């Protein structure tokens, strides 16, 4: 019995973390937030194998597990790194593999990082405003909100009834949707008889893809929140008031302890949920739902508390702490807000 990361996984974590520390410092996040692109970052990550992580070896990938993917997601969250990871490296490859179709060529392009697939799942989870995606033959109509990301070559679109389609970016109307999270970008997709390729009409393929997406967002929050705790603890040790470090005041150190106490069990939860996706099919969906929802709650608490530990500085743009605050906030709402996801968890157990 061994519950935790293997030596290879620790190595993967170290490699990705080192790359991000060197190549995606806060200035790089700011540059992206100011309108730059993430092409260089994604190219570098692809050279590390990040884009190919989940893609089977026979399709040109590395064939690693969802737990490996969660490790990378945690690193990306830790650095609030702009990257099309969630769609291109995780959800699209998962959907393509689960569909049973032959997508070798496309998977090869994804593995190489030369093609990006965005995701538009919101309308199959919870439609807002007048959005919704309907199907007529081999084309789509309607509107998908908050599709991720803004530089995709094609989008994996979930229709209202959870069928999955691939739509070329050229075939859809694309309008940027600004959100509070400037470390990643979302768009509105408009379909008007847009030609689409069906990937699968089996809701299980949609569900499997959604499960892994949710676990990755939870892992991203794990990393982002961990970074916020690290920053808050460092700040509290350095910042002095009343002739002592503020971290020596119980009011402040207890805030830090509460954050750590909330987040540390989340690490095991993310590991388990990611492991379950591949190895424990009976538990996978329920743990994915709970992990998504629980990390959303703990992430929200840490984001607020860590900002407060920084006092007025936490509120400014000078430290850039708000990028992490907003990253946690976006992860909370994407692919199902916690209340909606918990309702799914209840339904899975026959309780709703």
């Amino acid at each position, binding site marked *: 019995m061994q519950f935790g990361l293997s030596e290879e996984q620790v190595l993967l974590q170290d490699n990705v973390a080192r790359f991000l520390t060197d190549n995606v410092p806060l200035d790089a996040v700011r540059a992206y937030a100011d309108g730059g692109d993430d092409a260089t970052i994604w190219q570098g990550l692809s050279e590390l194998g990040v884009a190919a992580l989940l893609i089977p070896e026979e399709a040109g990938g590395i064939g690693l597990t969802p737990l490996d993917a969660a490790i990378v997601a945690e690193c990306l969250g830790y650095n609030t790194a702009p990257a099309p990871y969630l769609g291109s490296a995780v959800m699209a490859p998962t959907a393509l593999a689960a569909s049973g179709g032959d997508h070798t060529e496309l998977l090869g392009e994804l593995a190489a990082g030369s093609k990006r697939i965005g995701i538009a799942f919101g309308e199959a989870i919870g439609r807002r405003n007048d959005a919704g995606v309907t199907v007529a033959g081999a084309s789509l109509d309607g509107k998908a909100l908050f599709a991720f990301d803004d530089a995709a070559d094609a989008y994996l679109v979930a229709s209202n009834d959870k069928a999955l389609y691939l739509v070329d970016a050229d075939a859809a109307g694309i309008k940027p949707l600004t959100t509070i999270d400037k470390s990643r970008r979302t768009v509105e997709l408009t379909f008007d008889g847009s030609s689409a390729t069906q990937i699968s009409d089996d809701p299980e393929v949609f569900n499997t893809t959604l499960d892994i997406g949710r676990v990755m967002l939870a892992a991203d929050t794990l990393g982002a929140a961990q970074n916020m705790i690290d920053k808050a603890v460092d700040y509290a040790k350095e910042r002095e008031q009343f002739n*002592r470090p503020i971290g020596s005041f119980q009011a402040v150190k207890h805030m830090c302890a509460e954050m750590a106490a909330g987040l*540390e069990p989340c*690490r095991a939860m993310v590991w388990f949920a990611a492991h379950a996706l591949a190895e424990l099919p009976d538990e996978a969906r329920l743990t994915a739902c709970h992990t998504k929802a629980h990390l959303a709650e703990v992430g929200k608490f840490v984001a607020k508390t860590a900002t407060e530990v920084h006092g007025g500085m936490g509120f400014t743009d000078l430290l850039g702490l708000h990028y992490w605050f907003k990253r946690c906030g976006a992860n909370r709402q994407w692919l199902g807000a916690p209340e909606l996801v918990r309702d799914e*968890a209840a339904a899975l157990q026959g309780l*709703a």
Partner: protein
Amino acid sequence: MDLSFGPEYEAFRAEVREFLNDHGDKAPRNAALKSDELISWQKRLIEHGYTARTIPEAYGGFGAEPDIIKSRIIAEEFADARVNSGMGGQGISMLVPTLLEVGTEAQKLEFIKPTIHGEMVWCQGYSEPGAGSDLASLKTRAELDGDEWVVNGQKIWTSTAHLADWIFCLVRTEPDAPKHKGISFLLFSMDTPGIEVRPLVDMTGVANFNETFFTDVRVPKQQIVGNRGDGWLVANAILGHERDSLGDPNVTLTRLNALTELMKTETVNGERMIDNPVYRDRLMQIQGRVMAMRFNELRILSSRINEGQDAKLARMVTKLQGTELRHDLEGLAIDIMGEVGLSYEDNPYTRGAGSWQSQYMFFLGLIIGGGTSQIQKNIISERGLDMPKEPKFEMGAL
């Protein structure tokens, strides 16, 4: 990541299940301390190695090699079957491990066997009215007079002192030494003249706690564990032990399942509580937290059997998180029942024999006891996050 325990352990699990299947119905429920029923069940458990498992046979135990996984399987299966998994109490959970660590051979032979067999019941004399979180400031003193220690002072929160045969007690023997270095760890019979036990009724309505007063209590000199002045070290070795055992996620899971069942049967205006989205969401929030703590526990277990896996912080947070979670869980049960949730004692509308109410209050007691949540937060921040300590002020310096 490998969550299987392997065939050897699965065979062991099957063995435990068979025992529970064959004998589980003989397990006592709510039996009094030292009742024949409890003692004979305890004996049966020890014979099968399901409690006192690693205590050497010479001291009345089962004598197995320590095996963390087997211990865990036993705990899981007993919790799952809701069968009494053996006696607890501070003698068994705290004194026995201490004696095994630092007791003399004579002390081990004299005390361990009757203690683990439930024939000798202990209470713990640590806290005092003026020494709670700052335990090392305790003032109960013991002075050597010939071959005897003479103990004077007062203890508080002495659980089961009114039922206990013996007490293990922290006393100040070196009044001139720094506060942590002047304490010794004594054992003495509660029948010794000069001991007065006054019950302290707690919020659940039970008088399990006591105030215990010592007036010229004479204790044979050799009834000291460890050396003179080493009592703080002796006591601390097992305080960690106590914290680890509070808020066990396996038990919490059992309670969560009971709560889910309760929500399926309780109704308001004819609607099952589980069908009410507000209450159901609260249940799901708790379920998510229970899950996180269960996986945290798996990680801790794994760190104990695999070299080089760090779970220090994961371990440090279990008492704080586990007890708060349990308190919230029991509180939700009361909330879903509304006014019915107030029912207590002889009220005919009481559910689960009043366990939701008593556990709700009991876990508030555990949030405070065994190192308060605030002390836990000091430990997590200072030892886990390496944050600076609160400056210490000497009396009169301000």
